[in-house]
């Protein structure tokens, strides 16, 4: 995986399965610890990344894509941390899931919104790409 476009990037690929989400959380903890974040802000990033990966894992399970991967790409800029979580978990077709199953995911989405400064969610190549931005020193 050569990545000459982004020399300050950290990239992680994990299987899209529940037992690997903790690996993503630890890796992003290492990256976020390098920023001028407070202890609470590092925790925010860890939780937000955990939630994004969890959502990917849940959609992969629903769509029969548990053999796919999640890519976590993070870039440290001078004043902010940018994290992309890219899955191949298939479409996030809200209509396809029952009311009850849907809600815990909304709790995850709510948490992400509360924990980072910017979030965008874009369908992409049979999966979803989530971009989160957290500003440092605010």
């Amino acid at each position: 995986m050569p990545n000459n476009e982004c020399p300050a990037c950290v990239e992680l690929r994990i299987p899209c399965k529940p037992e690997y989400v903790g690996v993503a959380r630890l890796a992003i903890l290492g990256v976020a610890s390098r920023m001028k974040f407070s202890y609470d802000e590092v925790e925010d990033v860890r939780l937000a990344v955990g939630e994004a990966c969890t959502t990917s894992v849940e959609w992969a399970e629903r769509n029969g894509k548990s053999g796919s991967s999640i890519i976590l790409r993070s870039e440290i800029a001078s004043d902010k941390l940018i994290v992309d979580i890219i899955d191949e978990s298939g479409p996030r077709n809200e209509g396809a899931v029952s009311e009850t199953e849907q809600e815990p995911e909304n709790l995850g989405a709510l948490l992400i919104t509360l924990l980072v400064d910017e979030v965008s969610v874009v369908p992409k190549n049979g999966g979803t790409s989530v971009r989160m931005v957290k500003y440092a020193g605010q």
Partner: protein
Amino acid sequence: MNFKMDVRTFEKDLPIIDLEGEVDVYTAPQLKQQIINILESGAKELVVDLTKVDYLDSTALGVLIGGLKRMREVDGNMVLICPSPRIRRVFEITGLDKIFDIYNTEDDAREVMGKEIE
């Protein structure tokens, strides 16, 4: 990862679930099953002790909400012990601290439960 769960009983019939480590998408299903087992055993009250939990995600919140709902359906109750500010923060920012009864110590939690038993 780092996760442990134990169930003990206070006096006759107050089950307490002790959790330790990370309660997340990987480990929360074990908690869900444990809560279901306790409900099926006929218990109407339950304490979940989060004192030693250092990570709790939306999956865990969902399981706890599910447990609370089912307990209330049988006119029972479920309360939490959560002295850790970091974990309590997750309940606070999601507004779930208004839905759950959260105590700092086991004594506080048991006192409330005791009252309801009487």
